[in-house]
Every structure is written in structure tokens, then in C-alpha cells.
């Protein structure tokens, strides 16, 4: 998303932003959902500052098309975790939130401001890509 070198810095930014915006939390969504939204905004802001274009969630086919055509033997070059890091932003976020963090599609949809259907399709495509990087 932003690289491990910046992750710690952004984590601090998220905490500070959350601290300062706490009074704007009105309880309309679950706190965790609101917190993720804050975190995503911080990350997107940082990416914008770094000139990294956001890949659109709504165009999953286009965003994922490139990765699905991996070169033969690529699965032996990188492991599962590395492959996860190479997923397009939208697919990776959905995969992490659903399969690693246990959120449901409707919750993810709210966090990422996408439809539940898009969340499902992004998850499936991410899994389809990652299955090629399982340990054999």
C-alpha cells in the first residue's frame, strides 16, 4: 500500500487523526468501521502526497487483469505474503479485511465506500490470484 518504511509513520498519523477527530464520531456506524474509514483517509492522503494514484475499486477486472497473467514459474519466485503485497489496492484491502480480519462484506462495503457485490468480487479475484502462490 505505502511500503513498510512508511507504515510506522502512517500508523502514528492514524492514531493522532483518530484522537483529534474523536468528537466527530457520532455513533452512526460501529467504532471499528469509523476507525477504518479514518485510517483509509489518512493512507489515501499520504499516497496522494506521494503521488501514488489510487486504483479504483469499481473496476476490478481492469485493476486485477494484469496480475492474473503472471509469468510461468512466478509462484516459485515469491511467497504467499509477498504475493499479497502485490495485489491491487482494492483487492488487497478487501482480502485483508475479510479473510484476515474477519469483517463481513457489508461492513467492508461501508468502510471502503463500495458495494457489497464489489467487495465479493474483489475478494474472489484476490483469492484466485493468491492460490497460485500457495506452498506446493
Amino acid at each position, binding site marked *: 500500500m505505502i511500503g*513498510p518504511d512508511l*507504515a*510506522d509513520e502512517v*500508523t*502514528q498519523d492514524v*492514531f*493522532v487523526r483518530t*484522537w*483529534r477527530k474523536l468528537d466527530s464520531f457520532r455513533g452512526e456506524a*460501529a*467504532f*471499528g*468501521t469509523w*476507525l477504518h474509514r479514518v485510517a483509509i483517509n489518512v493512507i489515501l492522503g499520504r499516497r496522494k502526497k506521494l503521488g501514488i494514484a489510487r486504483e479504483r475499486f469499481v473496476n476490478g477486472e481492469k485493476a486485477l487483469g494484469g496480475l492474473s497473467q503472471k509469468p510461468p514459474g512466478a509462484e516459485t519466485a515469491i511467497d*504467499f*505474503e509477498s504475493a*499479497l503485497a502485490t495485489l491491487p489496492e482494492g483487492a488487497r484491502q478487501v*482480502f485483508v479485511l475479510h*479473510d*484476515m*480480519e*474477519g*469483517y*463481513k*462484506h457489508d*461492513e467492508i462495503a461501508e468502510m471502503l465506500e463500495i458495494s457489497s457485490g464489489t467487495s*465479493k*468480487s474483489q*475478494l*474472489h479475484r484476490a*483469492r*484466485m490470484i*493468491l*492460490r497460485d502462490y*500457495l506452498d506446493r
Partner: protein
Amino acid sequence: MNDIWTDRLSEYLDGELSAEERRELEAHLAECPECSATLDELRRVVARAAVLEDQPPTTDLWPGIAERIGVSSGEAPAALTDLDEYRDRKRAGLGRRRFAFTLPQLAAASVALVVLSGGTAWLMSRAARPTESEPPAAEAPAAPVPASFVSTEYDAAIVELEQILAANRDQLDTATVRVIEENLMIIDRAIGQAQRALAQDPASTYLHEHLVGTMRQKLEFLRQAAEMTGAVS
């Protein structure tokens, strides 16, 4: 390999297909080894994801945060150390537990705690001040409050509640479940500390009351969680 069912395999895996769709897909799987193989791989991806560990920060982030929000950085918040416990629980397969229990079970557990609390107070009072009606010679030995009994009964009540956790798991959103888990972890830590202190000083009235109070807090917290699921009112 790419038929109409291929793109539905994740939904099947996650239990999101209708009963009719599921039957159709299962019939297809019986005849399509490629889809069966893909489904098996998707299962492995999901299993692999479940054991991936969060990457902790490379440095202690709290001093920098404390400086920016204008508080003392002398001591890291307890939540940071609790995080390690949370990860341990997650690795042990406890990270995604949900809570569901019946009113009778909660009532039974509540009664158990009330009885235990009352019993503890009774034993304390007996140990602390013999009454006029009780000749000292006839009094039972000033046995320490049976903390193990308290713990055993309490654990049994909690275990009974937790054995049916999965029943209403979809009634709470994930963020709420996480908050519940983290709060229970904090309460469990307090209970553990009280139990350890009690082992060192079994006659301490304060520690006994503190232990029972913390246990009651956990039970009340579980009761509130149950109310949120709609399992009890």
C-alpha cells in the same frame, strides 16, 4: 477452466449462496474436477490467510504519538501490551469467538456469583469476628476462603456460556465483537492478577472482594453482550 460457477466458488466457500444455488453448484462440483480443484485451492488460501500474522511496528510508536497529542509518554498504554495477548489468542484460534448464550445460563451464572460472593462475605465475617453466639471452641478452623471453589464454579459458568458462542455470531458486527474480545481480555487479565495476588495472600479480604467483583464485572459484561445479540432481553 472458467465456467459459470467458477466465479461463485468464493461465495459458496463463505456460505453466501442460496440453498438452491448451493445444490446446483454441488451437483456441478461432482462432475467438474477443475472446479473442485479450484475450490480446494481457495480453501487453502482462506486457511493460509487466517494464520498470517500482523506485522508489529518496527519501533515503539507511542513516544511520537504522545508528543503529537500532548500527553506524557512515560508509560505505554495498557492496550499496547494487551495487543500481544490478543495476537496470542488469535493464534490459538480464540480470536474470532462470538458470544451467544441463553437467559437460563446467564441466570445460573449470575446466581452462582451471587452465592459465591455472599459465601465469601460470610466466610470473611466468620474469620474476622467470631460472634457471641458462637463459642470459639466450636468454631471451624479459620479456613481460607476457598478461592479454588470460587474459581471452579465461575469457570464452569463461563465455559458453559462460551461453549455455545457460535450460535448468534452474525448478530453482532465484527467491530463490536472485537471490542468485546478486547474488554474481556482486560477483565481476564485483572482476574488473573487478583488470583495470583490471592495465592500469595489467601487471607486478604480485599483481594477476595476484588476477585469476586471482577468476576461479577465479567459476567455483567457478557450479559450485556448477550443483550446486544438479542439472545436475551
